[in-house]
Each structure stands twice: as structure tokens, then as C-alpha cells.
């Protein structure tokens, strides 16, 4: 199946095209086509995995060159797909979680008249995301990168009849453009340095490049990753992206697309290994974002925005791990996979709650939903335990490893990065428990017309499957370091290093902080009464509620100067560029008007013109030449 991996992209792409072109005729059955396409892609990926497992480790990577994309003298770009352990991991995550979310969406979007279009976009997303992770060159990766950006834009703005949703889609798109430009510059630098854009050539030549070149490329790749993965300072779009339907938030803005930045960093490992400065910046961005996201998460009352902040924070963990080099790569991907399960599960749970509460998103109007929605409570609870990192649930195996790895090193780095990761764990426990208790426990603070009920099976079954994953996937993959071993052909083998603190101490510290966070949240939001309106709070909370004024900052730093710049340019274009063109055009027209007089309409003057011309030519040639 490895050589047929292109089918995984082709199936959802074809389905997307079919659903978009078939129009209203496909309304009745279109969503099932979408589900089947996504499921088919999963089966292809599964086949590839099984085939790969049967091969010796060193020959697991396989490049399928499909056709030549851009033939050119110095630049030959082939369209090729790279199936190796890393990309297959992503393929399985994307298609498995994707298929579950497709199924969930069948029920969730049942009453939406545009459900077929929704599935077309979802399929488009799956195809683009698979292209992103299967590409064997940065250029092809960029095609997928832009494709998921487009799908994300279309899906955030799916209900674009509401202006603020359309604005949110635009915002996501614009902020992502900044990241895209980073990727374009990185590709330009690579082409200048290596003369190629395919992974094998670039990575083979990377050790020969200078540190400065590699650092520049690495930082530009980081800019790209920050845009797509909502890392500081390009994080502002993710909260607004929650305007999209909840399955979209679960699939794109939690489990898959936003992790593309992490994928990019891990895939570009050979470049970063030659650029330690760039690596430190990656880790620093991750550490900062994980704390930033955690603080925002503590202040949000909108359940989806709180989950979005949590996503930002968790990707910060992955970014931090990716910035640690070979010892962190495998854990970054490991956490990415487990996070994909439990966060998608919790988003679906949130969707189920919203479904039950007439699309209410304010957690201050929830409470005591446990009784009404037992399945949602259990599945969400498993996700909650997983993200907290309570043993033996998934998050424990992935997040704790990152914390341990962050403490490895010399000088200030282990203390800063490790400390951030450790504190982040406590904060995570607090805000996730706050979310969990405010939603499912305490007193009911519902509005009068709300009658919560459990969601249909089409929605709860995917939630249950994801919950099982949240609970046990970490344990299964961590046993015997199975997962890190599996990724070794790509991420390289990492020597074991001892953290600056002993591992048992770290585990104990982490668990204590998590317990403090969770218990604190229980006292404040579980047992005590939660006010229905957000109370006046400290300056920090107010700042966190408004995402630390990110929009104001962006407006002041980027938007206003940008507007001034464009206005000036428009003026200059009008006055100088157009002015020059128009002036000289008028000059030509005047010249025409003047020479028009020569054409008097009188045949004698015509003959005279000929004669004069003839005489001039003859005189110059005959007399001048002699």
C-alpha cells in the first residue's frame, strides 16, 4: 500500500470535487460520500502502516515520484510522496480522527442546509493535510500548507452570513499569510543555499551549509510554524477561529492543522541540528506560548475559546520539545498524537454540550450537566484526565516526557524551559479542571429555555472512541518506548541524558502541581457557586480575558502602519507611476495630433512627401556615401 499512498490524497480530493460540482443533487447522500472518502483514506494509510511494519527499519522510508511538477533548467521539482514512519503517523492520525469527526458531523450538521458543502470542505482539508505531511519536498509541502489554509478559511467562515464569522475567517487567513511568507522565504533561502527543495537533497547537504545560513532558514521555518500553529506572536487568530462549526475546531484547530508547524520543525530536523540558536528560539517560543495559552485559558468563559487557549498552550509544549533537538522530537510527535485524540474528544464533547444547550457557549450558564449528559461527561472526563497528565492516561506519558526532556541540558536553559513546562502543567490542571467543573458540576445555571439532553449515537460513538484513545493510547505507545523507537529512522536516535533533577523528583513535582491545580479549581468552581456574570477581577485576569490585548497590539504594530504604508503607496502609484504613464501617453497623443497635419488629404502634398523622403534618402546615400 505504500506505493498506493497517493490514493489517500486522491480519494478525499475527488470526493470534495464531486460534492462541490454535484450541487444540490448530492444533498441527500453527499455527507456519506465524504465519510467514505475519509474512511478510505484511513484504510490506505493503515495498509501502508502494516506493510511498513513488515519491513526492516532502515528501508521503511519510501519516495514515490508521481510526475514532474516544475521542469526547469536549474530547478526541477518532482511531485513525489514520502511515506516514512513520521508521515504515516500523521496520515493515520489525520484520517482516523478525521473519519470520526466526519461521522460526528453527519449528526451535528444535520439541520444545516449546506451540509454537503461542509463535507466538501472537510474532504478538501483532509486531502490538503495529507499532501502536506506526505510531500517529499518543501515546495509540495507548501501546496498542502496553502491548501489547509484555504480549507481552514472556508470552514471558519462557513457561516459567513454573520459578519463577525467572516471577519474571523479573514483574520485567520491574514495572520497565516505572515507565516506563509516565512515559508516562502525559507524556500528561497534553501534554493539559494542548496539549489533544491526536495527533502533528500536539502537534508543531505545541510551539514555542509554554514551555521548562519541554517539559522536563517530555521528562523524562517519557525515563522511559518508560528503562523500555522498559533504560536506567539502569531497566535491571535486561533481564538477567533472558534467561529467555525465545532467539528472543524476539533479536527483542524485542535487535532491536525495547527500541529503542522510542529511537523514542519520536526521534519526539518537536519536543518535545526546545525542551527542551535534557531533551536533555542523555537524552544523559547514554545515555552512562552505554553504559559501564555494557559493564562488565557484560565480567564476565558467561552468553552470553545478556553479549549482553543489550551490547544495553543499544548502546542507550545510540542514546540518546546521540538526545540530541544533529537531528545525532544519523538516526544513532540508523541504528545501531538495523544493531544490529537484527547483534544478532539473534548471539542466534540463541547460540541455535544452546545448541541444540548441551544448553542450556548458561556460556561457560566452551564453547570450540573453530568446528570443530563452521562456519555458526554464520561468521555470528556477521560480527556480531562488525559490532558492533566494523570497516570495512566495518555497525557501522562507524553507530557511528562516533555517536562523531563526540558530539564535536560546545561546552564540556564533546563531551568527556564523545564520550569515553564512544570508550571504549565499546574496551570493546565487548574484551567482544565475549571472548565470541567464549571460545565458538568456545581449548580445548574441554565437559562429558562434550555433542556439539556444527550446527543444522538452518531455523535457519541466517535466521542467514545476518542475517549478510549485518550485513556489508553499513551500507555500502549509508551510501553517499551515503542513509539520513539518507531520514529527513530526519522528523528534519529537520542542518547539518554539525565535531567538536572532526578526523574522521580520531577514526576512527583509534576503530579503535586497538577493535584494543587485540580483541587484549587474544585474549591473555586466545583463546590463554590459560580456567578452567572463574570465578576470584576484583577488586572491580570482582565488582560487574560482580552487575550493580553493581542488585537490592540497587532493593530498598533502592524495594521495602522500597514494602512499608512499602503495609502502612501497608493498615492505614489497614482501620482508618480500613473502620472508618468499618463503624461507620456498624452505626449504621444499630442505628437499624433501634430503629425496628423501631414496627412492633409491633398494628393499633391502626398506626392511631395514621397519626393522629399526620396530626395533625402538619395542624397544621403549617393552624396554622403561617395
Amino acid at each position, binding site marked *: 500500500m505504500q506505493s498506493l499512498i497517493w490514493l489517500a490524497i486522491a480519494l478525499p480530493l475527488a470526493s470534495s470535487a464531486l460534492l462541490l460540482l454535484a450541487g444540490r443533487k448530492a444533498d441527500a447522500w453527499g455527507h456519506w460520500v465524504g465519510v467514505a472518502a475519509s474512511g478510505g483514506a484511513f484504510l490506505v494509510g493503515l495498509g501502508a502502516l502494516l506493510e511498513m511494519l513488515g519491513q526492516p527499519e532502515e528501508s521503511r522510508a519510501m519516495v514515490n515520484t508521481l510526475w514532474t511538477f516544475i521542469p526547469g533548467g536549474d530547478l526541477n521539482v518532482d511531485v513525489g510522496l514520502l511515506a516514512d514512519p513520521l508521515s504515516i503517523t500523521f496520515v493515520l492520525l489525520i484520517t482516523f480522527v478525521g473519519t470520526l469527526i466526519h461521522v460526528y458531523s453527519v449528526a451535528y450538521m444535520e439541520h444545516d442546509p449546506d451540509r454537503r458543502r461542509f463535507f466538501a470542505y472537510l474532504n478538501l482539508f483532509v486531502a490538503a493535510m495529507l499532501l502536506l505531511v506526505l510531500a517529499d519536498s518543501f515546495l509540495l509541502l507548501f501546496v498542502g500548507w496553502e491548501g489547509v489554509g484555504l480549507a481552514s478559511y472556508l470552514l471558519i467562515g462557513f457561516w459567513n452570513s454573520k459578519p463577525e464569522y467572516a471577519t474571523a475567517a479573514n483574520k485567520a487567513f491574514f495572520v497565516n499569510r505572515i507565516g506563509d511568507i516565512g515559508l516562502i522565504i525559507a524556500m528561497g533561502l534553501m534554493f539559494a543555499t542548496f539549489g533544491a527543495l526536495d527533502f533528500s537533497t536539502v537534508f543531505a547537504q545541510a551539514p555542509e551549509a554554514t551555521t548562519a545560513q541554517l539559522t536563517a532558514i530555521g528562523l524562517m521555518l519557525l515563522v511559518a510554524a508560528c503562523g500555522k500553529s498559533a504560536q506567539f506572536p502569531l497566535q491571535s487568530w486561533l481564538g477567533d477561529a472558534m467561529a467555525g462549526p465545532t467539528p472543524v475546531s476539533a479536527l483542524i484547530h485542535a487535532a491536525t492543522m495547527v500541529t503542522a508547524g510542529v511537523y514542519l520543525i520536526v521534519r526539518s530536523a537536519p536543518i535545526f541540528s546545525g542551527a542551535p540558536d534557531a533551536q533555542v528560539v523555537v524552544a523559547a517560543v514554545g515555552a512562552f506560548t505554553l504559559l501564555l495559552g494557559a493564562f488565557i485559558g484560565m480567564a476565558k468563559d467561552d468553552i470553545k475559546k478556553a479549549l482553543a487557549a489550551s490547544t495553543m498552550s499544548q502546542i507550545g509544549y510540542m514546540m518546546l520539545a521540538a526545540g530541544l533537538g533529537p531528545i525532544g522530537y519523538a516526544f513532540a510527535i508523541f504528545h501531538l498524537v495523544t493531544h490529537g485524540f484527547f483534544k478532539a474528544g473534548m471539542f466534540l464533547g463541547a460540541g455535544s454540550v452546545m448541541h444540548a444547550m441551544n448553542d450556548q457557549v458561556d460556561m457560566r450558564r452551564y453547570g450540573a450537566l453530568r446528570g443530563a449528559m452521562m456519555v458526554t461527561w464520561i468521555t470528556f472526563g477521560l480527556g480531562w484526565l488525559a490532558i492533566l497528565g494523570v497516570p495512566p492516561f495518555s497525557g501522562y506519558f507524553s507530557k511528562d516526557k516533555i517536562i523531563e526532556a526540558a530539564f535536560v541540558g546545561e546552564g540556564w536553559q533546563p531551568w527556564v524551559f523545564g520550569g515553564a513546562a512544570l508550571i504549565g502543567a499546574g496551570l493546565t490542571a487548574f484551567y482544565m479542571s475549571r472548565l470541567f467543573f464549571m460545565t458538568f458540576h456545581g449548580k445548574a445555571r441554565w437559562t429558562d429555555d434550555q433542556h439539556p439532553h444527550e446527543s444522538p449515537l452518531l455523535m457519541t460513538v466517535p466521542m467514545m472512541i476518542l475517549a478510549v484513545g485518550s485513556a489508553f493510547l499513551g500507555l500502549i505507545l509508551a510501553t517499551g518506548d515503542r513509539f520513539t523507537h518507531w520514529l527513530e529512522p526519522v528523528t534519529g536516535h537520542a542518547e539518554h541524558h539525565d535531567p538536572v533533577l532526578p526523574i522521580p523528583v520531577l514526576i512527583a513535582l509534576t503530579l503535586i502541581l497538577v493535584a494543587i491545580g485540580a483541587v484549587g479549581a474544585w474549591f473555586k468552581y466545583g463546590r463554590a457557586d459560580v456567578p452567572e456574570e463574570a465578576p470584576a477581577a484583577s488586572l491580570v485576569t482582565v488582560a487574560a480575558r482580552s487575550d493580553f490585548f493581542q488585537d490592540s497590539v497587532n493593530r498598533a504594530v502592524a495594521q495602522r502602519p500597514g494602512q499608512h504604508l499602503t495609502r502612501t503607496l497608493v498615492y505614489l502609484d497614482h501620482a508618480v507611476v500613473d502620472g508618468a504613464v499618463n503624461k507620456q501617453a498624452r505626449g504621444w497623443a499630442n505628437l499624433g495630433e501634430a503629425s496628423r497635419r501631414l496627412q492633409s488629404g491633398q*494628393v499633391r502634398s502626398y*506626392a511631395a512627401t514621397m519626393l522629399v523622403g526620396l530626395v533625402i534618402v538619395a542624397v544621403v*546615400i549617393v552624396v554622403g556615401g*561617395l
Partner: protein
Amino acid sequence: MTFTTPEIAWAPLAPIIIVLGAASIGVLIEAFVRTPATRRTVQLILGLVSMAAALGTLAVQWASLDGAGTQVMRLMLTVDRQALAWQSVILVFGLLGILLFASRTRSGETAFTPLGAATPGSIEETLARRRGLEVTEVFPLLLFAVGGMMLFTCVTDYIFLFVALEVFSLALYIMVALARRRRLMSHEAALKYFLLGAFSSAIYLFGVALVYGATTQTSFAAVGRAIDVISDRDGLLLAGVVLILVGLLFKIGAVPFHSWTPDAYQGAPTPVTAFMGAATKAAATAALVRILYTSLHPLEWEISWMLWATAIASMALGTVLALVQTNVKRMLAYSSVAHAGFILVAFAGLTAEAVVALPFYLLAYGLATIGAFAVVSQVRERTEDGAVGAEAVRLGQWAGLGKRSPLLAGAMSLFLLSFAGIPLTAGFIGKFEVFSAAVAGGGWPLVLIAVIASAIAAFFYVRLVVLMFLTDVPEGAEDSIEVDDSPLTRFVVVVTAAAVLVLGILPAGALNLFENAAQFLVTANG
């Protein structure tokens, strides 16, 4: 003194003989077939069949040509692939032209006056129109013109070249005078064309006389050899050469010998303008190529600046004057002057590439010209009683044509873009080939000017496109314009548009053909 009958190899002349013979038969038909409608049908069929037969004969000759070609009547005529290629191009223009000549409006009127001899606006003219008379002499005239032009491309003797020149010119002078509407303007145009043409013929003949005086030769090859022998630069020879070239530049329409072009293009019946614009330029270019490459090439250094100067003057003046025209036909006329300049650009350095580029350029230009004038002949004013009136040639009247007739306006846009040299049209390939030939010959300053001129020229071509598609029909003028629907003209428009596109996208076939044709037969003997 005994005369020996000259040995004439008739077979290589078969295509020309077929066309000129058909023209003569056409004159007889004028005398013997009395009903105008029947006469027109018979003439059209005769013209089509004879030109198609000539084309077929050409193809056979092309395939069976042994060696470089054949000399006919000692050094008078040379039938080589170069000549065959140009003759085919002219025949294609002739075939398209005759279809335009035969087409009629919905109300059944042709583009030609019912009685050429009648005074405009006189009783005789009205009577002739009422009786449904038709000047079907235009068909044999067209055949004479085509035959003369074909001859023009294969003649290799300066005196005989003059004969061929007059054969097609006289036919053209008459056809220009036969417009149905705006008769006075048509007469005026024909008279001007005739007077200036006679003037240029005189100049040409004078030049031939001087060259004969200097070299005692009249055949191309012999003159060429004689020039080689003359060691110092002979004033008599140079003056003669200049005069000969002026005669040809007049036919191409290069500045400052272009004055007839706008008036003749505007006054002539539009089908005649279409044919004349395409075919005359091709024939004159063919002769110029042959003369420059087989006869005057030893003087390349002396005459090159003359060609450069006329090329620059033509491009500059043609372009700026086209900018300010408000009449579609005049605008296209000045555009043809600018194109004459582009054609002359190719002669920079007399490269081998130019011999391939020029036939292609002329083919592309001619197809677009015929198509464009065919469109012009379809856009009509509506008279007050609702009948189809004269052609709407004011630019403003074309506003919103895209809504009235997307097919015509789309085809017209294609032709205009081809004139402008926009990629995916034949005009682009033609310009590209011509310019690269000039660059290869060291004429890059010329090419630079040509590119600038093309950029300026794009303005007035695109302006018409904008007018047709992006401008609304003026208020109250909705009924003033009518798009006439004549099947023959429509057919010509579609065929030329398709050809312009095909040559623009897949030019390889035609270019290969012209590459095979890029050799001259220059024999020493005779």
C-alpha cells in the same frame, strides 16, 4: 538576324496560368451571362475553383520540386520553394478575399456599387440600383490581382517585376473605386492611389534605368554579380538602387511613402481593403526579400541605414497617428503602416532567420487583417427607416459591441491582440520571430524601438477591445447600430480567428514549412 523562339517551361508556371486564365474567362463571363445573380454565382465558383486548383498545383510542385527550383525564360522567372510559399500565402488571402467580395447583407446588397461608371448620386446610379445591377467585374479583377501578385513573388528580373507590379496594381486601383456607399470618397481614394502609384512606378522604372546604366543588366542575379565587380561606389548605381527600393517601399506602405494608405484603406470597399491590406503587403515583402537577398546584398552596408530609417519612421509615425484616429478603418490603416515598419525591422543584417520569419509574419498579419476588416464590414449603421445602412466606422459606435454580438467582438479582439502581438496569437509568434531575426543580425536598437512602438500600439488596439466589452451602449443609441449577419463573412471571420489562434498556439508546422522554403535559387548561367 534570326529570332529563336524562346524555350519556355510552362509547367512551373501552372498556378499563375490557372489564375490568370480564370480571370480572362471571368471577363468573358461578364459579356455572356446576363443575369447579375447568376453571374455572381458563376464568378464566385470560377474564382474559388481556380484558386483552389492553383493551390493544389502549388502543393504538387512543392512536393515534386527537384533541387532548388526551376528557372523559366532564362533568368526572368524563378520558381523555387520561396516563391511557392509566398504564392500559397497570397492564394489563401485571395480565397478569403473572394468570399468577402461575394457576401451580401441581409437586404441583399453587396459592398460594391451597382454601376461603376455612374456619377455618384446621379439618376443612372439610382436606376442601376433599382434594377439590381451588380459590378461582378470585381471577381476577375481580384483574380488578376492575385495572379499579378503571384507573379510578383517569383519574378527575378527588374523589368519583368514592373510588369507584374502593374498587373496587380491596376486591378487594385479599379477595385478601390467601386464602393457602394460613400462613393465620392471611394473615387477620391482610387484616384489618389492611382496617381501616387503611377508616381512610384515612375520612380521605380527610373531606378531600373539607372541600374541598367550602371551595370548593363536587368536580372536580379546578374545585377548582383555586377555590383560585386564594381569596385568603387558608383553614384549611378546607388541612385538607381534607392529609386528601386522606394518603389517597393511604396507598395509595403512604409513612411514616408505611406501617404496613400489611410485614404485608400478608408475609401475602398471594405472587402477590397481586407484583401489589399493583406495581399499587397505580402507580395511586396516577397519581392523585397528576393531583391535584397539575391541581388542587392553586396550593397547591404549602404542600404541598411535607409531600411533602418524607414523602419523607425514607419513604426513611430504609424503608431502615433493610429493613437489619434477615431475611424476604425483609418486606425487599422495606420496600424498597417506601423506593421510595415515591423516588417522592415526583419531585414536588419539580412539574416537567414528573417527569410523564415517574414512569410510567417505576413501570414499572421494578413489573416488578422482580413478577419478584422471582415468584422468591420458587419457592423452597420441603421437607417431611419430601419434598413441596414453604411458601415459604422466611428470608434464610438463600437461601444458595447460585445453585448450585441459576442462572436464578432470576440473575434475582433483576437485580431487586435494579434496585431498587438499578445502571446497565444499568431501575431506574437510573428513579432517574436521577426525581432529575434533582427537581433541575430545585430539590429537590437531597431528591435528596442520596435518593442516600444508595440507597447504604445497596444494602447489603441486594447482601447477598441475595452470599448467593445467594457463600455455600455450609449443612452438612446441602442438602435442606431446593427450587426449584419452574412454567412460568408461570418465564415471568413471564424476561419481567420481560428487560424490566428492555431498559428499562435501551434506555430511549429507553419514555421517548418517556411523553413523549408528559406532557400533561393540563384544560378550563374543564363
